[in-house]
């Protein structure tokens, strides 16, 4: 009896090397396809033509000088958070606790602003704010790292839980410090005295942007040219190799998470002390999660992260302009962002692998 062997129509091969131009071509095609789908969905929802939709998106992000500054400021904050998460991801530590670390940093800053006002000179308060928020973020980051280092606790889940504990802590202090009593929110802190407000450099948006630039450069150097960065990479590739060459994996995990949390705390400081001058439970606005995606999309490359965070914020601001213009719900932005993310996530496959379709298709029946 003749045995029939079923041969698959195509098979998948891992690409050994791909030049970066080819890789970026694939990514850009994916983004364009995603934008086309977004435009289509917007058309269905609003009945407007695609060109004016993109004009509206662009107007929403860069329409006026003020909007451009605000967009850049949003990019700066998202960039800082993404950069903070990056070293952890590089060593395969899935820190999805950025949200909580940002909140704790913000909370520490707010605590200094509220409790120390009029007791210490303004400059001292600002120094204390910087120190305490960085410390608070670092502590919040290092707790899951200790669990991981000591008992190999799953970090995705433990950092996730830390987010909600932080959220509730902020909710607690919001009520403790609420002004006026019973309103359930803090309002602008030190509105008249401006104690603890981070100084304006040029205009009020520039401070975060400059900080983001400094952190980007610093992180690039740290990951690429220092011994620490190299150790992180080795741990990420293989913990066994790291142990074999004498790197203390536990030490690297704890040290890296201290850094990761500290930079998140810095983002919290900027949000509270520099931008909002108040604290709410939603002050980080899901950016701890968005940062995970920004960092991953950029392949953990700090410079590429500038573009991915710009893309996300651009779509976000643009889509909220669309929803305002057509009286749709603000969550429209999340849908569009989601679609773009799916496309970019999916296209990585075509960068890493090659699909080879069987050539003798059709000859089979002959």
């Amino acid at each position: 009896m003749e045995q029939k062997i079923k041969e698959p129509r195509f098979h998948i091969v891992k690409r050994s090397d791909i030049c970066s131009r080819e890789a970026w071509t694939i990514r850009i095609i994916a983004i364009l396809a995603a934008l086309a789908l977004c435009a289509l969905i917007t058309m269905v929802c609003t009945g407007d033509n695609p060109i004016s939709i993109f004009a509206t998106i662009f107007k929403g992000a860069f329409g006026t000088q003020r909007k451009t500054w605000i967009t850049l400021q949003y990019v700066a904050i998202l960039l800082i958070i993404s950069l903070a998460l990056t070293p952890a991801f590089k060593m395969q530590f899935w820190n999805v606790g950025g949200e909580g670390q940002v909140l704790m940093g913000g909370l520490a800053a707010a605590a200094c602003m509220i409790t120390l006002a009029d007791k210490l000179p303004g400059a001292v308060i600002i120094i204390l704010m910087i120190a305490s928020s960085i410390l608070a973020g670092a502590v919040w980051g290092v707790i899951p790292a200790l669990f991981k280092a000591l008992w190999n606790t799953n970090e995705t889940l433990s950092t996730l839980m830390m987010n909600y504990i932080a959220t509730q802590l902020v909710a607690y202090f919001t009520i403790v410090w609420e002004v006026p009593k019973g309103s359930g929110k803090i309002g602008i802190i030190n509105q008249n005295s401006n104690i603890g407000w981070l100084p304006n450099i040029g205009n009020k948006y520039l401070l975060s942007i400059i900080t983001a630039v400094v952190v980007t450069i610093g992180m690039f150097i740290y990951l690429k040219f220092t011994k620490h960065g190299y150790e992180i990479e080795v741990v990420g590739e293989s913990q066994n190799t790291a142990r074999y060459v004498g790197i203390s994996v536990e030490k690297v995990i704890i040290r890296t998470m201290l850094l990761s949390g500290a930079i998140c705390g810095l983002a919290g400081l900027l949000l509270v002390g520099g931008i909002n001058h108040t604290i709410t439970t939603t002050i980080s606005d899901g950016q701890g999660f968005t940062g995970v995606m920004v960092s991953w999309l950029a392949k953990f490359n700090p410079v590429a992260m500038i573009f991915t965070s710009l893309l996300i914020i651009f779509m976000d601001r643009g889509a909220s302009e669309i929803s305002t213009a057509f009286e749709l719900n603000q969550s429209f932005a999340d849908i569009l962002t989601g679609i773009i993310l799916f496309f970019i996530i999916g296209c990585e496959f075509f960068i890493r692998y090659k699909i080879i379709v069987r050539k003798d298709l059709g000859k089979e029946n002959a």
Partner: protein
Amino acid sequence: MFSLVAFIPRAVQQGVPLLLGSTGETITEKSGNLNLGIPGVMYVGAISGVIGSFFYEQAAAPGELNGFLAIFIPLICALIGSLLMGLLYCFLTVSLRANQNVTGLAMTTFGIGFGNFFGGSLIKLAGADVPSISLSATSQYFSRTLPFAANTGWVGKVFFSYGFLAYVAIIIALICAYVLKKTRVGLHLRAVGEDPAAADAAGINVKKYKYVSTCLGCMIAGLGGLYYVMDYACGVWSNDAFGDRGWLAIALVIFTIWKPDVGVLSSILFGGLYILYLYLPSGTHTEYKELYKMIPYIVTLVVLVFTSMRNKKEDQPPKSLGTNYFREER
């Protein structure tokens, strides 16, 4: 003052969405897929059901809803909506081998956005002239209790006073526990989650198991969203009302150490913890309530740390959790 008979039904009502979500996530995780998109899936399940029943209520003459269709249409819509989300997740992570954490988080962003967008804009998009989405007629069918619940005293209140989805949730959890523990399919599924390479070598179709279990998991989780909006919230959709229950469901998976049957009681416990702040004394200090709301998360964290400390073999997460399988990769 504190009445257990009044407290338990409320805890159960809080617990049912968590139970459905965590049962779904458990069988997903058993296949080695860490689906962080569950919160999004639950939103999509809820809003799909709402959309289905919204159009049905619009189409049917007032007061003439067919009981069977009123339940059937939202149910099917919710299942299809969450199935599509599951397929998307599988396509990206299993077929295209994308990173599971990133895909899951993107699905959560998308799903919550999807829910809130249609929840907020459905009326405008459909051109209907009603002030808000309030599906009380459909909700009546969902929250209809067993006929003898009212006249059996406290027994009725504690055991029979829930809509049918609550009982469905418990049955699903028990079936899942049985299948995982006692059947060959369950054994294969656990093998895929522990060591996909070994399972593959033993002739188990790894892709098929991952696809089926993740999609089924998403559908079950989607039902949790449907229960919340149709039964607990009385058919009234309000944006972000579902809150962080999706994440709590993922927490519950850890708390139950990947056992759906343990989930039945623990979900009620979690539901109780979730609303405990309403009952704990705080006097004039309302801020303590915010601290009490922390309890479920702290408990989960403690359980997570303890199970990893004790390092008992049967209490561990599936070994390949969070990693993708590619046969040619070594």
